C-alpha cells in the first residue's frame, strides 16, 4: 500500500536532527488563524459564548442610553420651562423637589450600571469557562503534538478577545437601539436633545469593558486547561 519511494522520501528529507531548528513555536499569525477557525467553525457555539457578552453589554449600554436620553429630556424640559417663566426672576416653586428627584434618579442609574456590569462579568466568565472545559480533549491532543502551555493560553485569549470585541459591539448596538426606540416612542424629538458625544463615549467604554472582561474571564480556565497533564486532559469525557 505504501509506495516505498514515498517512505524513503519521508525519511530522507529532514532525517538529520542536527540541521533541524531546535525550537517549539507558534507564530501569532498561525495562532490567530487557528483561533479564527475555532470561532467560525463553531459559529453556533461561539454565538452562545458571545451571547453572554452581548446580553451583558446590551444591558449596560441600554442603561447608559437611558441616562443620556433622560438627561436630554430634562434639558429640553428645563429649556421649555425657562421659556415659559422667562419673566419670573424667582426659581419655580417646584425646583427644590425636582432637584431631589434628580438625585434619586442618578442614584438609581448608578445602581443599574453596577448591576449590569455584574451581569456582564458573570455571563462572560460562565461562557468562557464552558468553552474551555468542553475542549479539554482537544487541548490534551495539542499538548501531545508538542504545544507548550502558553500556546494553549494564547489560542484561547485570542479567541476570547475576538469574541469579546464582536459580542460587545453587537451588544452595544442592540442595547442602544432598543433603548433609543423606547425613548423615541415616549418623546419623538428626544434624539435632538441627546448628547451624542457623550453617547459615543459610553458605547466606546462599554465595548472596551466587554472585551477586557472577556479576556480576563478566559485567563483562569485557559491557564488551568493548559497546565493539565496531557494524560488527564485526554481522559476527560464531556
Amino acid at each position, binding site marked *: *500500500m*505504501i*509506495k*516505498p519511494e*514515498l*517512505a*524513503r*522520501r*519521508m*525519511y530522507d*528529507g*529532514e*532525517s*538529520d*536532527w*542536527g*540541521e*533541524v*531548528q*531546535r*525550537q*517549539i*513555536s*507558534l*507564530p501569532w499569525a*498561525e495562532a490567530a488563524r*487557528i483561533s479564527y*477557525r*475555532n470561532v467560525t*467553525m*463553531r459559529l453556533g457555539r461561539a454565538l452562545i459564548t458571545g451571547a453572554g457578552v452581548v446580553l451583558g453589554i446590551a444591558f449596560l449600554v441600554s442603561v447608559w442610553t437611558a441616562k443620556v436620553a433622560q438627561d436630554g429630556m430634562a434639558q429640553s424640559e428645563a429649556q421649555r420651562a425657562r421659556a415659559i417663566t422667562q419673566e419670573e426672576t424667582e426659581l419655580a416653586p417646584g425646583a427644590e423637589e425636582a432637584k431631589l428627584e434628580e438625585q434619586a434618579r442618578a442614584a438609581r442609574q448608578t445602581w443599574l450600571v453596577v448591576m449590569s456590569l455584574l451581569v456582564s462579568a458573570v455571563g462572560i466568565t460562565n461562557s468562557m469557562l464552558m468553552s474551555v472545559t468542553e475542549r479539554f*480533549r*482537544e487541548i*490534551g*491532543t*495539542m*499538548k*501531545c*503534538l*508538542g*504545544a*507548550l*502551555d502558553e*500556546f494553549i493560553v494564547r489560542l484561547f485569549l485570542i479567541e476570547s478577545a475576538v469574541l469579546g470585541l464582536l459580542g460587545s459591539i453587537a451588544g452595544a448596538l442592540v442595547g442602544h437601539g432598543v433603548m433609543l426606540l423606547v425613548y423615541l416612542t415616549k418623546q419623538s424629538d428626544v434624539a435632538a436633545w441627546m448628547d451624542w458625544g457623550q453617547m459615543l463615549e459610553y458605547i466606546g467604554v462599554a465595548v472596551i469593558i466587554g472585551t477586557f472582561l472577556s479576556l480576563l474571564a478566559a485567563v483562569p480556565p485557559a491557564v488551568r486547561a493548559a497546565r493539565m*497533564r*496531557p*494524560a*488527564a486532559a*485526554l481522559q476527560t469525557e464531556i
Partner: protein
Amino acid sequence: MAEIECPECGHVIETTGLVTVCPECGADLREVMEELGHRRERLRDVARDDSVTTHEFIVRTKDLHKVYQMGEVEVPALKGVELNVRRGEYLSIMGPSGSGKTTLFNMVGGLDKPTKGTCFIEEVDMAQLDAFELAWLRCRKIGYIFQTFNLIPVMTALENVTLPMIFAGMSSDDMMDRGAMLLDLVGLGERLHHKPYELSGGQQQRVAVARALANNPAIILADEPTGNLDLQTGKEIIDLLKELNQESGVTLISATHDLKMIDVSDRVVHVRDGQVERIENRADLDLDVGTLGSESAPEHGE
C-alpha cells in the same frame, strides 16, 4: 549552524559556535554563546542524532510505579514495570482492560509522570526534562496515535497533519508539501481538505497516522489504534503501521488487545495487574508462520 543575535547592535551572525566577538561592533559574545551551548547540549541529549548514537534501547523503564489517587483510595496502576524497547522494533503491549496498558503508554509518551521509578527515552531521564524540553520531545521525537483518533474537529485533514509542524517551526510552504506527501503516503491524497467528520473512522485514523509522522518521530506510540475500527479497517491500519515500521525503521509501540496486532509484532509484552507478566518474541513463537499478515492469529503460550 546557528543564528545568534548580538546583544549590542542586533546584528545576526551565522555561526557554528566559534565566534566570540561580534564582527559588526566587536561586542563580547561569549555569554550568549555559552547560553546557546548549554541549551543545545540539553536538547542534544534528548534528540541524539539517530545516525550517531546507537543506544540499543530507545525506551527503557526502570521500576515504574504509578498510583492514582481516587479520593481517599490509592489505586496502583503500575507496580514496578521494567521494559526495554529496541530501536526499530514493533512492540505490542497486550493485556486486559485495567491492566495498566494505557498508564504505561502515558508514562512512556511523557503524557504523565510516574509516582516512582524512571522512564528513559534515548537514555534521557524524562523526569529531568523541563516543560519546554518535554514539549519538544512530544513534538519531534514521539508520534501519538489514539483509539479515538483525537483529530482537531475544526481543522481539515491537511491542517491536522501540519499542526505539529507549526509547533516545530517549519515554513508554511514546506509544511503544506510535507503534509500533502504524508497524507498521500497513508492513502488520503485525495482528501486533503476534508474535515474529520467528513471522513470514515479508518480514514480519520489514517490522518492520525500521518499526523504522528509529521516531524519524523523516532517512536510512534499507538494506544489501541484499532479499538474503534471494524475488523477490515483495523487490519488496514495495522498493515499501514507495519509497513511504516519496516520502511522507515521507526520504533512502534502499541497498546492493544487486538490479536491481529500480534501477527505483525516483533515482540509482545503481556501486562497484567500493573506488572509485566511475560514477554514473547515473535521469532521464538511462530516459526511455522512464514508470512506476515496471515489471516488467523497464531496460538500463544509459554
